[in-house]
C-alpha cells in the first residue's frame, strides 16, 4: 500500500444521493495504486460500493461499472471521453455521478 494517497471529490445527484446516506458530497482518499496498477475509475466505483453505499447496490453498480442511466463526469467532462473505468485517477479529481432516471 502506497503511503501517498489520492484525495478525490465525489458527488452524487439526480436521486443517487439517496443510496449514499442522502449526502451529496464526499471527499474520498484512495491509494495511488490498487492491485499493483494505478488506481482508476473502476477501482473508485467498487470502493464506493464497498465503503459508502448504504442500500440497493444494484441501482449503482452492475458488472464492475455503473448501472446504465448514470452519467459520470470527470472534472466536468463525460467519462466516455476519458476512457470510462480505465481512466487513471489524479490527486484532486472531481467525479460526479448523475442519475438520469429521476422522471420526466
Amino acid at each position, binding site marked *: 500500500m502506497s503511503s501517498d494517497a489520492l484525495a478525490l471529490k465525489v458527488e452524487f445527484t439526480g436521486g443517487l444521493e439517496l443510496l449514499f446516506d442522502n449526502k451529496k458530497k464526499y471527499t474520498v482518499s484512495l491509494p495511488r495504486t490498487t492491485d499493483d496498477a494505478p488506481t482508476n475509475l473502476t477501482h473508485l466505483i467498487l470502493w464506493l460500493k464497498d465503503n459508502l453505499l448504504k442500500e440497493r447496490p444494484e441501482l449503482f453498480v452492475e458488472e464492475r461499472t455503473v448501472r446504465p442511466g448514470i*452519467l459520470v463526469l470527470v472534472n466536468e467532462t463525460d467519462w*466516455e*471521453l476519458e476512457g470510462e473505468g480505465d481512466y487513471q485517477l489524479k490527486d484532486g479529481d472531481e467525479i460526479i455521478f448523475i442519475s*438520469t*432516471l*429521476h422522471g*420526466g
Partner: protein
Amino acid sequence: MSCEKPEDVMPRKPRHDRGKTCHKCKTQPGQLIVRHFVYCKDCFFAHVHSKFRRQMPAREAYCQPEQEPSLSVAFSGGLGASVLLDLVARTYRREGARKPVWSPITAYYVETCAAYDGVPDAVEHVKEVVNGYRGIELVVLRLEDAFDTQTPLLALSLADERLPLSSSSSATPTDALRAHLAALPTPTARLQAISNLTYALVLRAAPSHAPILFGTHLTALAVSLISGVAHGAGYNLTPPARIVRPLCEISAKECAAYAHWRALRPLRSRGPPGMDSVLGITRDFIVRLDRDFPSTVSAVARTCAKVVPKRDSSSSAGAPLTCALCERPAQHGVLEWKTRTAIRSFSSDSEQDKTEGTAVAEELCYACHTMLTSRARVRGPSDVEQVLPVPSWTSSTIRARMRESVKDFILDDED
C-alpha cells in the same frame, strides 16, 4: 447453460471516433458525447436550444386578435420539465427581449404526494423554481382535485368487466383519490392512473386554444410509447395537436448534463422506482439499449410516433368517442374487442340483466378498461368486491351520456 455477458454477443461500438475535440467548433475540448458526437459545453447548449426551438409550434397558429398567444407548460418538476422550463424562460423571457412572443406563459404543477405514503409535498420547492424565472406564472393543482366531492362521485364495480355503476362512499377528495388507487389491480395500473389523472387535470386547467408543452424527453418518450403499446394504448400514440413535446429529440443524458451545468434542481421522481411495473421494466430496457446502441432509442421513438392509428370513420361506428376516464380519443366497442381477442367468460346471464344499461365499460378506451381489469382476478368467496370512485369529469360524463340515452323517454315534469 452458459451465461454470456452481452458484450460477448454484441460488441459495443466505440463511443466516438473523432478524437476529443468538439466536432462543431473544432477548437474547444469535448465535454460530452451525444450519440457518438463530441461537444464542448458551449456547442452542447447551442445544440439543445436548436433542437428545442425546432419542435416549438409557430405562434402565428395560436394568435388571437389583439392578443399575444398564451403558452402552457406542464411542469412536473422532474428532469425533463426542469430543462423545458429553463429553455422556455431563456428563449422567450430573455433579459432585454423586445416583445413577449408568448404571453402569458403559465406553468401547471400537479402535486401528487397524496397518492403516496411518506412522499413530501413539493409545492414550496416548485414555487421557488418557477418564481426564479421572470414572467412565468405558476398554477398549482393537486391530484385529489380530480375528485371533487361537492357533486356526488360515481363509482365502478371492478368485479365485473362490464364495470357496472356503483356509488362512492368517499367523503373527501383525498379519500376518493386513495380509494381510486387502492381499487386498481396492479402497480402498473396505479402508475398509469396517476399519470392519466395528472394529464387530464393539466388539460382541463390550461386554455384550450393554446399549446401545452410537456417535458417528455426522447428516452421517456421511447419508454412511454413502448409501455403504452403494452398497456393497450396503441390507439393514442399520437397526442392531440395542442400537446407539444419540445424535448422529443433530446435524450435523458443530454437533459441530465444540461440540468447539471445550468444548476437546475429537478425534483426526484415520486414513489418507488417501480421495477414491479411495466413502466419500470420498459425504462430499464430502454436505458440499457441507449447505453449500448445510442442511435437506436431515437429510431424506436420515431418509428412508434409514425404509427398513426386509423380512427373510426363515423359511418361505421357513430360519433367519435372520448374515453370518460382519461379523456383521450377511444374506439367504440371495448368489450367486443376483448371477446374477439381473448377467451373469457362473462358472469351469469341473470347478473348481466341486473346491470345492463348502467355498465360503463363501453365509455372507456381500451387502455383504461385494461388498466381497471388487468389482472385476471380469481373469483372466489374470498374475493372482495372492489369499488373504484371515478373522477368528477368521469362522473359527469357518465351522467350526461345516461341522460342522452334515455332522453326520448323523459316525461317533462314540472320542476
